[in-house]
């Protein structure tokens, strides 16, 4: 499983992906002794990265939560696969996203769970008109630090295939299949294909035409298209009533973001780490998850982005896990009604997910940065917006925080926060660390600096 950045080279296509390049990428390569950050060009200063990894339908709490707090605790069953990383992550208990609760909106806890997980806001109940949640923590970070990397943020998911049916109880599927929200009305759709992710990150490399002149020329051509279409969008927009302008706002925002990238691409020369190639087609769910983690680690390693979200499976997913001994649908058994057999199966699914997360931490630790590892400069939240799948509660959430945030976080602990501490408080503390301090967002009531 480990060497999944395979030999299979795809023909890379020219286009915007090709016109974009990585800033001073070789600076990030582990083989180079002295490291210079693209952003600051001060030696020995590595960028901090943040990621949020989502698992659905809650967990079996008795097999998740250690009995003791502090540093002296036994890892419970579900977290056993993470034993090798015990000193690199903390278990955070007592956190809540209370905006996931119904608050008069009736059923739909799965939709609200994922919509509130990174936003701390209450999703508007709608099947499709006027969807509305809130800006998510990753996008707040991307807004501030995203201009320093090729991709301001990277959204990933393993939910390929069409999204049909009515989704959860009168909520649009947008709430369940997206985690990241750029604005309160625009979710950031995730990539599900590892090859596509690779192409977005490194398309230019294999596409050839690496000379400065060729890149400038392509950037110039790209810019002429962007000028044309944004002109178009502005003209159309001026003819619309205020309520209908949103679509073209989105369009213009996208144009501006791409313009920034085209500009970046002109200045820098792209480089891929040695022996890294586009991933091959994957077979099976586990391989898919691991390839996505590979891509995420690679994106961080090459400083192609510093902010990411990854939905291992969407909230409410009824995927069976026969390879983990669970042939029933995940959602179906998560309504376990305290039936020991069903609970056991949920534990198995949870353990499977934890094993994949351990693989990711392995990967991050295998990359050296200065005297430490890539993981040391990361802040990775892993968790679910539902505590117990049977109760659909949005407090007592299962949350892990991995990495040392560039020396600002002390992992290896079980930290028990006061009951119903808003998860957004933790996020505020993470935003401070990545350089995007914010006074409040969503339902935050303060910071949670006990992670230090």
């Amino acid at each position, binding site marked *: 499983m480990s060497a999944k950045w395979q030999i299979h080279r795809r023909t890379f*296509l020219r*286009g*915007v992906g090709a016109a974009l390049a990585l800033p001073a990428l070789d600076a990030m390569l582990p083989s180079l002794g002295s490291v210079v950050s693209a952003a600051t060009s001060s030696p020995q200063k590595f960028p901090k990265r943040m990621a949020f990894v989502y698992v659905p339908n809650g967990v079996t709490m008795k097999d998740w939560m250690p009995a003791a707090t502090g540093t002296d605790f036994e890892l419970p069953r579900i977290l056993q696969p993470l034993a090798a990383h015990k000193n690199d992550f903390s278990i955070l208990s007592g956190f809540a996203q209370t905006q996931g609760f119904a608050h008069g909106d*009736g*059923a739909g*806890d799965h939709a609200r769970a994922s919509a509130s997980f990174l936003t701390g806001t209450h999703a508007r109940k*709608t*099947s*499709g*008109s006027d*969807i509305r949640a809130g800006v998510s923590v990753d996008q707040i970070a991307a807004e501030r630090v995203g201009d320093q990397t090729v991709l*301001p943020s990277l959204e990933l998911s393993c939910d390929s*295939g*069409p*999204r*049909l049916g*009515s*989704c959860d109880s009168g909520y*649009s*599927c*947008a709430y369940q299949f*997206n985690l990241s929200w*750029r604005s309160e009305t*625009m979710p*950031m*759709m*995730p*990539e599900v294909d590892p090859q596509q992710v690779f192409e*977005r990150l490194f398309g230019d490399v294999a596409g050839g035409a690496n000379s400065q002149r060729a890149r400038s020329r392509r950037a110039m*051509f790209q810019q002429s*298209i962007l000028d*044309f*279409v944004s*002109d*178009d969008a502005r003209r*159309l927009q001026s*003819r*619309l*009533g205020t*309520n*209908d302008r949103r*679509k073209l706002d*989105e*369009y213009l925002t*996208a144009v501006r*973001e*791409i313009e920034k990238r085209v500009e970046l691409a002109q200045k820098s020369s792209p480089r891929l780490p040695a022996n890294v190639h586009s991933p091959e087609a994957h077979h099976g769910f586990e391989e898919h998850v691991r390839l996505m983690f590979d891509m995420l680690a690679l994106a961080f390693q090459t400083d192609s982005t510093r902010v990411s979200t990854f939905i291992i499976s969407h909230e409410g997913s009824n*995927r*069976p896990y*026969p390879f983990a001994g669970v*042939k*029933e649908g995940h959602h*179906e058994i998560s*309504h*376990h*009604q*305290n*039936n020991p057999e*069903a609970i056991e199966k949920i534990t198995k699914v949870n353990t499977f997910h934890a094993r994949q997360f351990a693989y990711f931490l392995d990967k991050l630790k295998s990359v050296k940065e200065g005297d430490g590892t890539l993981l040391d400069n990361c802040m990775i939240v892993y968790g679910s917006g539902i505590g117990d799948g049977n*109760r659909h509660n949005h407090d007592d959430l299962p949350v892990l925080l991995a990495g040392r945030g560039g020396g600002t976080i002390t992992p290896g602990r079980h930290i028990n926060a006061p009951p119903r501490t808003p998860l957004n408080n933790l996020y505020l503390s993470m935003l401070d660390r990545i350089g995007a301090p914010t006074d409040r967002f969503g339902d935050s009531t303060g910071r949670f600096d006990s992670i230090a």
Partner: protein
Amino acid sequence: MRIPLLTFSLLLAATLPAAGEPAPAADLDARPLLTRYCYECHGDGASSGDLQLDAFKTLADVRKDKATWAKVIRYARTQTMPPPDAERQPTQAEREKMVGSLTLQVYDIDLKHPDPGPLVLRRLNQTEYRNTIRDLTGVTFDPTLDFPQDDTGYGFDNIGDVLTLPPMLLEKYLHAADKILDQAIPTDGSSNKMPEPMRKLFVRHLGPNGASTTRPVARDSDAARLILADFARHAWRRPPRVDEMDRLLRLYLFARKNGEHFFDGIKHAFKGVLVSPSFLFRGEIYAERVPGVRPVSEFELASRLSYFLWSTTPDDELLDLAGHGALRKNLDAQVKRMLASPKSKAFVENFAGQWLQFRNLDAAHPDPRMFEAYDDRVRDDMRRETQLFVESLVTDDRNPIELLTADYTFLNGRLAKYYGIPGVDGKDFRRVSLAGTNRRGILTQGSILTLTSNPTRTSPVKRGKWVLESLLGTAPPPPPPEVPALDGGDAKHQLTGTLRQRMEKHRADPNCASCHAPMDPIGFGLENFDAIGRWRDKDGKDPIDPAASFTDGSKFSGAVQLVDLLAKTRRNDFCRALTEAAMTYAIGRGVEPFDQPAVDRVAADLRKDDAKFTTLILGIIRSAPFQLRRGDTTASARSTTDLHGMIEAAVARTGDASPGGTTR
């Protein structure tokens, strides 16, 4: 009147006071019905569930709390209320009268001056993008490999509000345009290497010998302008405006000045066309802002028709008619032509496939060890059966009720054997009679039976819910949290027995009964079909008992009788659900209260015995939400003129082309 007002015109006469604002103390016309059927629990001092209907004394009070009244209307319509054990039950006619009159009054709907709803800008979804590129350029491009999954709303993937455009997607559009144009236009401009639509386009303007790349820029520009205008008209589904043409030509000249050949210059401008919001979004944006409701332009109508029935861009015939202002005049003939085209398979795949969810069969994961017989081939066969079946209803213009009741289906040898139906051999699908078998209509097709099952067992609740939700549009509210589940239960509430016995215990709880009473019997009736759609007589060791009854006393002995019963007693619900779904798909937004008159009108036509599939399709196409648009000013969504008259005049039909039931 050519467009019948049926239900609502009757209601109008019976229930509405004079047009205009109601008098301040005006009351609900449905008050007597509410008093009779609801006050026992929600009036006269009673306030079950914190709802006291007589606390709303006037119409003004009612309109102040639309959320509550929306619930009242929904519960009455879905027969959730009065609860099945209530002594007094309204007749179907009374129920419809209550729902219809409440809808009109609560939402202050003026039948004569319908509100067509907000302008919806719809981004092309993956399917539409693929088909549009195919028809426009002849290039096969598969967006599922490149683009992120579209979000869905109201069960469909063509809903304007959820089709957002994050930066990543625009990046993909830029990339895709390069990829597509590299295939569409070879650098040497050799027209015989071009896909057909491109070849035709270039030959139209350059002649069969193509352009010389060495001619002076000035003459090239003339040719370029013609080519660009032609391409933009097709891509944007309307003629480009003068300022747009000037800017497009500048793109071409930019490339030429930077040393590109004629064809690469064209390609550069084409890229602008394919990434422009005018290509990626559809929805009419006027050149200037105009007040007042009006019919959509002919070009917009061509787009609406084309994406509704074909999931792709309008063809030359539609664009030419629109260009001559003759599309509305030829609407029926065009719709017939479109339905007869193979492109209308897209309607079945995308509308029916999402409405009935069979497009989603991949998401069903029957446990491979318990169901060895189920594999990818069976799955594809099942999906094909349902696709062909619905296609035949559309192309043969059958009554949509046959979706439920058809005594035929489409099978190949493999699927027939799987179903246990003799006499069908070979790999080709063909129409097969179901006479003398245990199957009837869509409810007994493997696709539906499988996708409404759990991985390891059937789920009568899921099947019942699917029927109520998709086919009948009367989905019960979701269960409250912490209800005892079927598969276990804690020590105190241990449920034992067969699946059905356990479910019946569950349903004995009055809290569960009101929702499960209409739902579970449907699932029981289908229990003879296992979780992958095969016939079975036993569930494990226990014999299956497929007989059940509904709270109104109607009984059935098994699947075939169940289907007949539903078709007979729930026909109104079926017609309405089908209409709402098709309307949602057609207009790209949810059906709102102000759309109800339009929905009712189509549904009323649809329930007639001589209704056909075109009754539905033409009904929707002629409706206010499809034909009209709001003005650009927000002051008043309403028109001041009689819009039915306007539609009538616009949709001036000729001869006897009207579908069954719509002429009077």
